[in-house]
């Protein structure tokens, strides 16, 4: 089910809408278990940097120099993670930046630690940057640890209350209330949230 991705894409779209007329930058990344080999920390952080630079329409001189220098190495050489992180922190300091990372649980665990550490470094270098992440609850602890006390968490799973509230509201709009009795209403309010939890 793509619900987590929906969640991220809604936030990314909302942020992109805010970019119009403001000094805002948005970069997103969607983890996908099927692409885990390609989604290394260097490729992931590199893609965030790529999006931010693409928005600026300019490249830091330091990166241009490293790009030209690496061509002399056999087969070329990638920009290394510490350099990418440093550049991300510098570029995100130029304007208010939002970084969205979807499905962090689909990232390889050892890569996840590295990426969270890198995001923490970017935040320390650029305190106005905002990071939005989604993932299954078992990675909540490690995320909060790596990102210090900067994390606010929202649980999606505990929203059964919302379903009940919603059902009661809809039952209140029933056009044939004579077909309803309190026993049926209680069954609906009890069983539907359970059914949803099991899907």
């Amino acid at each position: 089910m793509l619900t987590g991705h929906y969640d991220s894409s809604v936030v990314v779209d909302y942020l992109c809408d805010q970019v119009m007329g403001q000094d805002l930058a948005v970069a997103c990344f969607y983890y996908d278990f099927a692409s885990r080999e390609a989604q290394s920390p260097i490729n992931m952080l590199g893609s965030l940097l790529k999006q931010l630079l693409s928005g600026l329409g300019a490249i830091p001189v330091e990166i241009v120099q490293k790009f030209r220098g690496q061509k002399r190495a056999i087969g070329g050489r990638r920009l290394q993670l510490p350099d990418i992180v440093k550049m991300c922190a510098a570029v995100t300091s130029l304007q208010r930046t939002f970084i969205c990372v979807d499905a962090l649980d689909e990232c390889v665990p050892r890569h996840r630690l590295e990426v969270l550490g890198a995001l923490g470094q970017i935040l320390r270098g650029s305190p106005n940057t905002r990071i939005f992440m989604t993932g299954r609850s078992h990675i909540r602890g490690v995320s909060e640890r790596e990102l210090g006390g900067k994390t606010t968490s929202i649980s999606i799973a505990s929203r059964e209350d919302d379903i009940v509230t919603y059902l009661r509201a809809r039952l209140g709009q029933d056009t044939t209330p004579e077909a309803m009795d309190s026993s049926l209403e209680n069954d609906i309010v009890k069983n539907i949230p359970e059914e949803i939890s099991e899907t």
Partner: protein
Amino acid sequence: MSRAFTDNINSFNSFNVSGDIILTATDDEPKILAWLSPLEPQVRHQDICEQRVDNVGNWLLETKEFRGWYDGRENGGENGGSDHAVLFCYGEPGVGKSYIWYERPSMRNEGHDC
């Protein structure tokens, strides 16, 4: 993105925008961007948007957690609101999130375009 900022870049070959970083316009930009990463998350974003039902998930944008995170800069004083720098949205797959997200906006009679 800031238009004034981009204009400046076009006017000068390179310039110092802060103590830490000097930006430059270069013909090598496409090659450099490809060198930084072969991945294109924007493509994935478009794919997901196409599969998404309109207005799904908008409730999140109205939560106090999201507003606190988004507006954190104004609330945070000297530290730039870094107490709210990260918003982590967690849940197990298949808890019916898409159902809620599909229905709630219509219940509230408001929406947000993809």
